[in-house]
């Protein structure tokens, strides 16, 4: 069922905010409203559960509220579906939910670890030929193209076009620009209350080892007034891990499982 209004969604979710619920859905009202406006949000609801589907190009992202680990018969997995379940060691209900989705045809693609940088941690920039600045609206296509080159289309949490434009307008995208004017790198910021999330950071292959990532990171922290920052990183992303750890990020006990159903 496609969701037509925030009020309808709010009523749906509120019915499932019950003791013992397992969920990976923590969207903010503003984000839900945008998805609804784009006609990108649909739900499947039954007595003991609610699934939220966010339509993306060629696949859908899924979030869930489950009171019990069971599904009714429905056909909502007719297209590739990805979901991510973040938890700490103590969140046993979510570990069980991860196993449950695997029993429903989802495969574990990889796990990610969350790193946190305490607020007001200083991060230095380095000498670099790349100039870091905010992305302008006219640069959205170039930024989107660089994102598509650097991240997986389905599991890379790539923003939809409307989301990208919205984030540019809100000054949530920084770029590193080569002397030629080419966009050599990007950093995508997510806002979470008083803290921020480093959603994407990438430097094009031909511009690496020039200080771009370090300067994007330093500029991001300065731009966000050195608010507390979190980043999710794959264990096999050694370059990324070293960048974060060298700048003071620390594992904070959160891990996530990225699940995919073709």
């Amino acid at each position, binding site marked *: 069922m496609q969701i037509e209004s925030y009020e309808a969604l709010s009523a749906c979710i*509120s019915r499932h*905010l019950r*003791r013992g*619920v397992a969920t990976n859905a*923590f969207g903010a009202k503003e984000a839900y409203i945008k998805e609804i406006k784009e006609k990108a949000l649909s739900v499947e609801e039954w007595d003991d559960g609610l699934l939220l589907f966010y339509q993306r190009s060629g696949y859908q992202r899924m979030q869930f509220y489950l009171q019990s680990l069971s599904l009714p018969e429905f056909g909502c997995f007719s297209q590739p579906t990805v979901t991510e379940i973040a938890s700490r060691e103590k969140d046993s209900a979510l570990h069980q939910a991860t196993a449950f989705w695997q029993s429903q045809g989802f495969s574990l693609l990889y796990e990610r670890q969350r790193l946190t940088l305490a*607020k007001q941690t200083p991060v230095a920039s380095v000498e670099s030929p790349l100039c870091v600045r905010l992305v302008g609206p006219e640069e959205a296509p170039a930024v989107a193209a660089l994102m598509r080159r650097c991240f997986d289309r389905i599991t890379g949490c790539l923003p939809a076009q409307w989301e990208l434009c919205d984030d540019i307008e809100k000054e949530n995208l920084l770029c590193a620009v080569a002397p030629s004017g080419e966009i050599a790198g990007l950093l995508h910021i997510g806002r979470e*209350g*008083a803290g921020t999330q480093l959603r994407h950071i990438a430097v094009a292959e031909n511009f690496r080892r020039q200080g771009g990532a370090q300067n994007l990171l330093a500029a991001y922290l300065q731009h966000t007034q050195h608010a*507390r920052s979190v980043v999710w990183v794959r264990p096999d992303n050694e370059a990324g891990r070293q960048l974060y750890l060298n700048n003071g990020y620390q594992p904070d006990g959160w891990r996530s499982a990225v699940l995919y159903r073709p």
Partner: protein
Amino acid sequence: MEELLNILNEVCPGVDFTKETALIDDGILESLDIVTIVAEIMDVFDVELNVDDLLPENFNSAQAMLELIESRRQ
């Protein structure tokens, strides 16, 4: 307040909830904790909360949570 503190200590042990005023902003409580706390509050205090109540400012301190509960009781 005591019932609320019991809930909070169960969800996140080792925090002095009588003093902290930036539980969300400082990352002491996470989104997942808020969902758990909301479910517990509805059960223990017999109040109706909904997704609109899941705002950081409602959960930055025990006092803010108590005010939210009181507002829903009225």
